């Protein structure tokens, strides 16, 4: 969270100049350009996949509604959201397994309305892998080339390359039933990659793997993406996976896109309480706006806690109610009363979870709210349940969001 600190530092400096509108503009530009995970220059605006006002209804129920999405050439794009948010439907619309009820899907600038799945230059890695169990690994991988009637010698070369790419050369003549989960995953990847698609679609590709294998495959996915330069579109519900792999992320909720941005934009500057809560952990405090000027907002929660928050990030349509999001790692925990940090409250430790490098504490405030605090594990501290503590954070370490 160096970035967040860095940005808010600049913002504080700029805020002293006044003019909140100018600052808001500045922030927007900065958050797009400073982010470290942007590997692509902004000038590159070739779109591989574009969704224009796309909706999909299943028997009157909207799975997704009026979605706009622009996925750039060569980027690793993740669609992130809880189950049932419409992320898989979005992917299936791009693949061509579903037709949009309204709107338009474009791949490399071409309208896909009348193009069936088998004529699209995209390939999918299915969540269940969907390997053909009546074919060997080699035949699975060469399937796409065989149905396109590619010559034998060229085909075999491509299959050998693909097998090598996913390190499965020695399994070429096995059947899928004889492979482990991770090996099936590699075969599914190779089967899609061998066709050299313009866009790779990955539907929860690592969902069925255990933690260690998942970490390993995450690294391999990143390597493959960099090696091949193909656009990857991945659907996942695992926010950590999305943050660590993607160039950009679209966060979805109830068939809508809540926010699109780089991992750091999404994490440091969530635009809605949902995004703040879904990506990482956060404390949300809802309250009425008691006082507002160009720099600062003061909120009063129903429990009677007053919270100060910098206004710079706030995108508030009205100034009546707002939600403050404060990350657990931005809250300081101390046993002595801290120097004035803006927001400072007393309470006691309710639960404590030992995580090795960190302590995960739930602090019960005297006013009634509970806050989650992530505290670096220092040996001099002796925190036990019922220990009276103070929690504090700067107004610049939290965000005000529309309720």
């Amino acid at each position: 969270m160096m970035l967040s600190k860095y940005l808010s530092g600049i913002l504080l400096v700029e805020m002293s100049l006044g003019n909140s509108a100018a600052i808001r503009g500045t922030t927007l530009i900065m958050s797009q350009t400073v982010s470290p995970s942007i590997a692509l220059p902004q000038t590159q605006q070739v779109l591989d996949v574009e969704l224009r006002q796309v909706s999909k209804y299943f028997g009157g129920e909207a799975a997704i509604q009026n979605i706009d999405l622009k996925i750039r050439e060569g980027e690793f794009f993740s669609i992130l959201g809880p189950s049932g948010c419409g992320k898989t439907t979005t992917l299936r619309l791009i693949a061509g397994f579903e037709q949009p009820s309204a709107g338009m899907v474009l791949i490399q600038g071409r309208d896909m309305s009348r193009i069936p799945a088998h004529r699209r230059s995209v390939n999918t890695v299915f969540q269940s892998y969907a390997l053909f169990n009546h074919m060997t690994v080699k035949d699975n991988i060469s399937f796409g080339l065989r149905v396109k009637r590619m010559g034998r010698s060229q085909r075999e070369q491509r299959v050998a390359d693909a097998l090598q790419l996913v390190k499965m050369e020695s399994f070429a003549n096995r059947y899928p039933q004889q492979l482990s989960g991770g090996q099936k995953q590699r075969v599914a990847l190779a089967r899609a990659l061998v066709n050299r698609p313009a866009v790779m679609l990955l539907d929860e590709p690592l969902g069925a793997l255990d933690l260690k294998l998942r970490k390993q495959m995450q690294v391999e996915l990143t390597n493959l993406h960099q090696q091949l330069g193909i656009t990857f579109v991945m659907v996942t519900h695992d926010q950590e996976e999305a943050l660590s792999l993607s160039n950009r992320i679209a966060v979805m909720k109830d068939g809508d896109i809540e926010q699109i941005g780089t991992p750091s934009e999404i994490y440091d500057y969530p635009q809605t309480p949902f995004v703040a809560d879904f990506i990482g952990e956060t404390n949300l405090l809802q309250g009425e706006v008691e006082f507002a000027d160009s720099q600062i907002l003061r909120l009063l929660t129903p429990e009677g806690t007053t919270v100060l928050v910098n206004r710079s990030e706030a995108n508030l349509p009205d100034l009546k109610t707002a939600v403050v999001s404060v990350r657990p790692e931005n809250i300081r925990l101390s046993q002595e009363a801290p120097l004035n940090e803006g927001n400072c409250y007393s309470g006691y430790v309710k639960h404590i979870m030992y995580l090795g490098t960190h302590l995960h504490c739930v602090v019960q405030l005297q006013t009634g709210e509970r806050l989650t605090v992530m505290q670096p594990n220092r040996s001099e501290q002796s925190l036990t349940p019922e220990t009276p503590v103070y929690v504090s954070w700067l107004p610049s370490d939290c965000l005000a969001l529309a309720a």
Partner: protein
Amino acid sequence: MTASPTSKRWHFSPLELSQQFKRLLGALTLLAPSGLWLILFLVLPTLLILDISLVPGLRPGESGDGYGLGNYSRVFNPFDAAFDSVYLQVIGRSLYYATGTTLACLLMGFPVAYWLALMAPRRWRNFLVVAFILPLWTSSLLRAYAWISILRPSGLLNSFIGWLSSGLPGVQLPEQAWLYSSAAVLIGLTYNFLPYMVLILYASLEKLDISLLEAAADLGATPRQTFWQVTVPQTLPGIAAGCLLVFITSMGDFVVPTLLGGASSMTISRLIYNQFLGITRNWGLGSALSMVMILAVSMMIALLLKYGDRDSVKEA
């Protein structure tokens, strides 16, 4: 095993022995009812038929002329004085009817089962399946009689053909004697066994993983390529099971060939019936023909089981 002088297999502690005994007892208890049933009503009668088939010219109330292969020789040995090629013709015709029925059921049943399992609206699916097997709720005898009224010279089919001819002047469509022909037998058998084929294929297609079809399309396969390279191989065990069932049951069917077939469409089941209950009354020959049929069907089952298992053999 070579290290220990006494083989380990035979060293059971009393506790282990009692456990082994209990396991054996459990298995016997589970298998006994069906085992007894099979021995009493399948194995023993088959042995009885085998015994009778070895007595040439055995008629009811007679003791026969001792043991011999005379009955089989009459059917298969062209150098036997009693040989008559009509038996081989009948066996051949039965195989032809069974094969034709199986093919017709497969060709007509697959599209129906495919539509039911993959394309029909989900909430109508069960209703449609039931609707399709509804004919099975009526007696096969009744259904055969229904076909008689359709196929007889003044029946529905000929009336329809006549109506078509009168509507199309200049075109003379032939009105045929449909009944008592091979065509009538094939129609009746196909009608009878199509629901079984559809049910089995439906069960197989319903289990088909849709994502496999999507994966094939995703990899660029046209619907036709997907069908032949994914759908058919994936449902091959179901296809084999359906064909096996229809082949065997249509080969053994007695009602349809008897009621819809004429003198020229004698089948092995009718022939056997004649040997036991008809005018000919040659139990020895009837038993021999029964044994031939049992053997043929068993061989079909063995072949198809082996063929159906080929994939799993390859896997192992």
